[in-house]
């Protein structure tokens, strides 16, 4: 297409560029002007990550043709502040903790900038409205409101005073905040390589079909096409997490709608997409199965003909479409039910949900002629990317080098390879660097890492006094066409099936079925929101059956120290009752609710980490330090705050003297990846241990120089003294300098941590939750009886974090988790009908917006874990689980109904109201 001249002002500079008529303003800024701070989360106007100021008004740059900006004034994030000086809006965001993954941040800042330019003292309502088009999946908006509040009150300076303290328990500002707030952070799609071309996938148009032929000739003929790869012309192995049942391309048959069949690369993304549409696939449609109960019937179509041929690292019965079956329990439930005064039954359903990171998957690969391949990707597990690729493409792990970029939100959606295999194959085939980015539609419909939908049936026996005596739980998870995370989801779910309650007789069955649905993944607190909904909604029903208040009932049955779980884990540092009491008090639990309003409680428990990791802490010549860890930060900020705080504490130096090394899988020590609430529990602990190791070495060195005993060495303010004799000292910098100069190298503190879970007595693939964390949420809401609309009026979340290394970080996880959990409770549902996702966009799959976020009370409980130096417990995942149960219970309280299904959309609520009216 012919290019035309575009003259406009960008960040106060006059720019003249040539663009095609179809170039969007977003593309002109990112690609032509290199202003990568403007992000593309959707390209359809729904997320706000592309926000710029156009003649001072905040607009989506994906909604504007570049040529429409002729003569106009554009401000991007790069145009705010001066070099080295942040704009006040940026400062406020940095200090408040309003930045996590940072992908929404430039847009968020520009929307706030637009607001404050017109109105220096906006109300909170003004702020909520102003950022209501800017979706943030990480923060729950609360800290963004705090930033605006500080700006509007002019309390920015006061905030600064305590903003930079980096002691344990201080609100240290994460070290990547400035990089993110200025738009400088490089995410996967920002990678630009010389001669780079773009990839696209050919996807199955059937949910279940035999593939008769794949004809690539049409695609290869299209000018601009550089490579086409299908499953027929490469070596493919099976890969997966515990269960290795998936290959890179569908070969004999396609098992879900959207399954990749071929990949193409071309000089532009448009041509690549066109080429993909020219690959002709001939199918023979097969009968498909979508419902998990139907999938288990003997005459259901088989999704996998030989499921037992796959490597599975766990044990399980596997036949037909049964992907995994697990049983665990204790006592005798039949006996328990016989002893009970009341037996309460219920069945609970939750839908498919998407991780909803604002950054879509994107990966870039380059193959060097020697055969080694470099991959830039947005991944929570860079080391696992190598091993997945090695299995999938039948190569050696060492043939891949993975460079993790900043991650624009992970939440489990970036634990598993999505695009990496395709860019690798296309880069090899074409000899050129290849980038591939999922469109938002593809991301939602086929990225195939959704939260498992669930059906949970519970039968509970209770005595009149409220004591739980028996519980039988059957969990059914539909894992879709492939089950990399199905077994894990059921196994985790089984540990929550009895809730955090003392139940002497338990019988838990977990079933995972294959179907021709999009495969499911392992999303933040996998099975947590599902189980918290089922178990906690059910517990409320049980409490009502014996005429007990929900809080009193929970306090009666909740675990104490020394209680055991269904696998025989003996619990320590249990804080569930404290969490329950604090959350309930925060919404004035004992005050009765006016009609049309209700209160609800829910609690849960969850794992902290761990898996293996290794951390090195290395001296520089001037007594600054390099912290070397292979763990990436998916956005939570653990790596750039609490890990540094712990390292600093372990060494006895300020955190600002410790530099986090950003590297790749060639240069960094192996790590499992960011997930499982392990960052502060496992990585920061490892950093602390490495720091202590290094400190010991420094003290020994000093002891030698000062001719005193090591035990008498004291490190303070950058010097090491002999205890009791301040005059006898040596500067840390001197020790480091000498060491480097005279002995030729640094001192290195090392820590290796392996996965060591507490002991259990029952066979179970996961067994125990190390350093379990506990939480309770309380909510107050009102319901519009006519329309079914819910308004959440108050929300309190009490979380036992063991020790809050960085309270801002803890609160950020909780607030963000609550936002996500409220979404699951009230609006999030990916609708799949006959294997087709009907709402693959942020317009139709709704995330909680700034206007939906209720006023939050975040309560940090600190009951130190027995494990680890500071007693830290994980907080990344837990907050997402209880909102489902808490909202359902509040609704039940307001309407006197049985909630059985999420999400509680106005229509769903209105259906509940109708059943009640009929019942009366």
């Amino acid at each position, binding site marked *: 297409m012919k290019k035309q001249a575009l003259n406009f002002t960008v960040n106060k500079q006059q720019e003249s560029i040539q663009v095609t008529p*179809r170039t969007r303003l977003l593309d002109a800024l990112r690609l032509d002007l290199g202003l990568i701070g403007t992000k593309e989360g959707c390209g359809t106007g729904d997320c706000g990550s592309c926000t710029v100021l156009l003649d001072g008004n*905040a607009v989506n740059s994906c909604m504007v043709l570049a040529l429409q900006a002729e003569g106009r004034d554009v401000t991007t994030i790069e145009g705010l502040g001066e070099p080295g000086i942040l704009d006040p809006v940026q400062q406020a965001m940095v200090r408040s903790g309003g930045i996590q993954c940072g992908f929404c941040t430039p847009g968020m800042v520009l929307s706030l900038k637009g607001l404050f330019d017109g109105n220096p003292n906006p109300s909170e309502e003004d702020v909520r409205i102003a950022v209501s088009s800017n979706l943030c999946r990480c923060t729950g908006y609360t800290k963004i409101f705090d930033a605006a509040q500080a700006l509007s009150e002019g309390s920015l300076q006061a905030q600064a005073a305590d903003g930079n303290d980096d002691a344990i328990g201080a609100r240290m500002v994460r070290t990547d905040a400035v990089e993110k707030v200025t738009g400088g952070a490089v995410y996967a799609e920002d990678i630009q390589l010389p001669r780079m071309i773009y990839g696209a996938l050919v996807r199955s148009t059937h949910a279940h079909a035999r593939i008769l032929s794949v004809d690539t000739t049409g695609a290869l003929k299209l000018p601009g096409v550089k490579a086409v790869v299908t499953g027929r012309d490469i070596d493919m192995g099976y890969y997966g997490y515990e269960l290795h049942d998936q290959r890179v391309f569908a070969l004999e048959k396609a098992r879900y709608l959207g399954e990749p069949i071929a990949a193409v690369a071309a000089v532009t993304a448009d041509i690549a997409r066109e080429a993909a549409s020219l690959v002709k696939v001939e199918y023979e449609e097969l009968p498909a199965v979508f419902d998990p109960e139907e999938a288990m019937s003997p005459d259901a179509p088989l999704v996998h003909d030989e499921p037992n041929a796959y490597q599975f690292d766990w044990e399980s019965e596997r036949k037909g479409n049964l992907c995994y079956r697990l049983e665990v329990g204790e006592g005798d439930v039949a006996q328990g039910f016989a002893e009970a005064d009341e037996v309460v039954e219920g069945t609970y359903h939750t839908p498919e949900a998407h991780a909803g990171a604002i950054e879509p998957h994107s990966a870039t690969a380059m193959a060097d002629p020697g055969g080694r391949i470099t991959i830039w990707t947005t991944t929570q597990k860079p080391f696992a990317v190598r091993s997945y690729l090695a299995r999938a493409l039948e190569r050696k792990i060492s043939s891949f080098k993975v460079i993790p970029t900043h991650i624009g939100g992970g939440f489990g959606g970036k634990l598993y390879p999505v695009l990496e295999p395709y860019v690798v194959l296309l880069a090899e085939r074409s000899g050129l660097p290849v980038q591939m980015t999922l469109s938002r539609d593809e991301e939602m419909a086929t990225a195939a890492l959704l939260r498992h939908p669930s059906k949970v049936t519970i039968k509970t026996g209770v005595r009149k006094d409220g004591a739980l005596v028996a519980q039988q739980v059957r969990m059914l998870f539909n894992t879709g066409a492939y089950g990399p995370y199905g077994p894990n989801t059921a196994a985790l779910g089984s540990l929550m099936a009895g809730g955090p309650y003392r139940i002497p007789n338990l019988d838990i069955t977990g079933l995972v079925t294959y179907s021709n649905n999009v495969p499911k993944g392992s999303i933040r607190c996998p099975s947590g929101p599902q189980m918290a909904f089922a178990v906690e909604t059910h517990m409320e029903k049980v409490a009502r059956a014996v005429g007990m208040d929900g809080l009193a009932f929970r306090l009666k049955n909740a675990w104490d120290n020394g209680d055991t779980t269904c696998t025989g884990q003996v619990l320590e540092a249990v804080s569930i009752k404290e969490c329950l009491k604090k959350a309930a008090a925060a919404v004035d639990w004992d005050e009765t609710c006016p009609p049309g309003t209700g209160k609800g409680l829910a609690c849960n428990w969850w794992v902290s980490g761990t898996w293996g990791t290794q951390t090195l802490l290395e001296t520089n010549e001037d007594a600054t330090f390099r912290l070397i860890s292979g763990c990436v930060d998916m956005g939570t900020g653990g790596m750039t705050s609490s890990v540094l705080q712990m390292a600093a504490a372990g060494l006895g130096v300020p955190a600002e003297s410790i530099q986090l090394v950003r590297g790749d899988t060639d240069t960094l020590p192996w790590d499992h990846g960011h997930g499982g609430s392990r960052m502060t529990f496992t990585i920061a602990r490892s950093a602390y241990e490495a720091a202590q190791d290094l400190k010991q070495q420094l003290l020994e060195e000093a002891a030698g120089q000062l001719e005193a005993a090591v035990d008498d060495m004291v490190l303070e303010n950058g010097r090491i003294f002999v205890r009791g004799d301040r005059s006898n000292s040596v500067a840390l910098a001197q020790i480091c300098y000498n060491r480097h100069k005279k002995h030729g190298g640094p001192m290195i503190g090392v820590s290796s941590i392996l996965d060591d879970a507490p002991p259990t007595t029952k066979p179970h693939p996961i067994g125990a939750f190390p350093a379990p964390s506990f939480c309770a949420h309380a909510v107050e809401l009102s319901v519009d009886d*006519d*329309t079914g609309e819910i308004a959440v009026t108050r929300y309190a979340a009490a979380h036992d974090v063991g020790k809050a290394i960085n309270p801002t970080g803890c609160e950020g996880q909780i607030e963000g988790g609550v936002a996500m959990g409220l979404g699951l409770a009230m*609006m999030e549902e990916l609708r799949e009908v006959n294997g087709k996702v009907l709402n693959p966009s942020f*317009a139709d799959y709704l995330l909680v917006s700034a206007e*939906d976020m209720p006023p939050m009370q975040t309560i940090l409980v600190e009951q130190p874990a027995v494990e680890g130096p500071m007693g830290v417990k994980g907080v990344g995942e837990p907050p997402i689980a209880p909102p489902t149960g808490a909202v359902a219970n509040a609704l039940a309280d307001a309407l006197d109904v049985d909630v059985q299904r999420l999400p509680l959309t*106005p229509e769903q609520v209105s259906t509940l109201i109708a059943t009640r009216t009929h019942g009366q």
Partner: protein
Amino acid sequence: MANSFEFTQPRDVAEALDALAQPGRVMPMAGGTNIMVNMKRAPLEADLVVDLTRLEELMPISAANGTIRMGAGVSFARLLEWQPGGALEGLMKPMCIAFAGPLIRNLATAGGNICDASAAADISPPLLALDATVELDSAAGGIRTLPLPEFFLGVRRTARRPDELLTAVEFPCPAADERWFYYKLGKRKADAISIVSIAMTVKLVQGRVERARIALGAVAPVAMHARETENLLQGEPLNEVTIGAAAATAAREARPIDDFRATGAYRRQMVETLVKRGLNHIAQQDK
């Protein structure tokens, strides 16, 4: 299949009309908030895109001789700032607040919302309730006007000829004692497409309905008047019986479909609920 269109940026309506008269597939583009979404998903079916953002003539909102004239190029952000008072503001303001979010409001235009003719277009119910007419202009045919209901032909189909530009909507300025009601039901507070939206204006004379307009969005292929309901109310007082009957009639008139946002049954039920709520509100509105 690739997107290959040309782009032109006329300076005034006359130039725009000339551009629209060009042969081939010519597409006027205002805020672009429908067009750009479509272009993200599939190549634009256009040979020439005519940018309307520079047409100052389409921007003003004016009042003369009891008629309000709203330029097609008025953005929703601008409309939100407009403070005409009374029924006009009573309908437009909540509609604008519920329309998309602030970013889209800064781009999206009234004209684009009307011409896109989605059943869920939020501007339609208020404009129908205000008895709006649309003004179309073309180089070949000159200006013509059409009552809004005649402009909407079907799902995303309008009476606009390809060479015509929507220049303005006009409607009689509502009387000071005109009563109103507006409600948009969505799945989220901000930025959600309507499940149902409703706009009403009612003129009560001595306790009886002299004229009622009840307009519904997202419950039929195009935004619609509940004509039977309007007629039913004519001359009646507003009481439990008439309101109940009106609500039931409106629910019957609606022709909602099932989609992933809501079932048809729920939409129909909400029409009944909201008509009832609206008429009750109107009966009590202080004048």
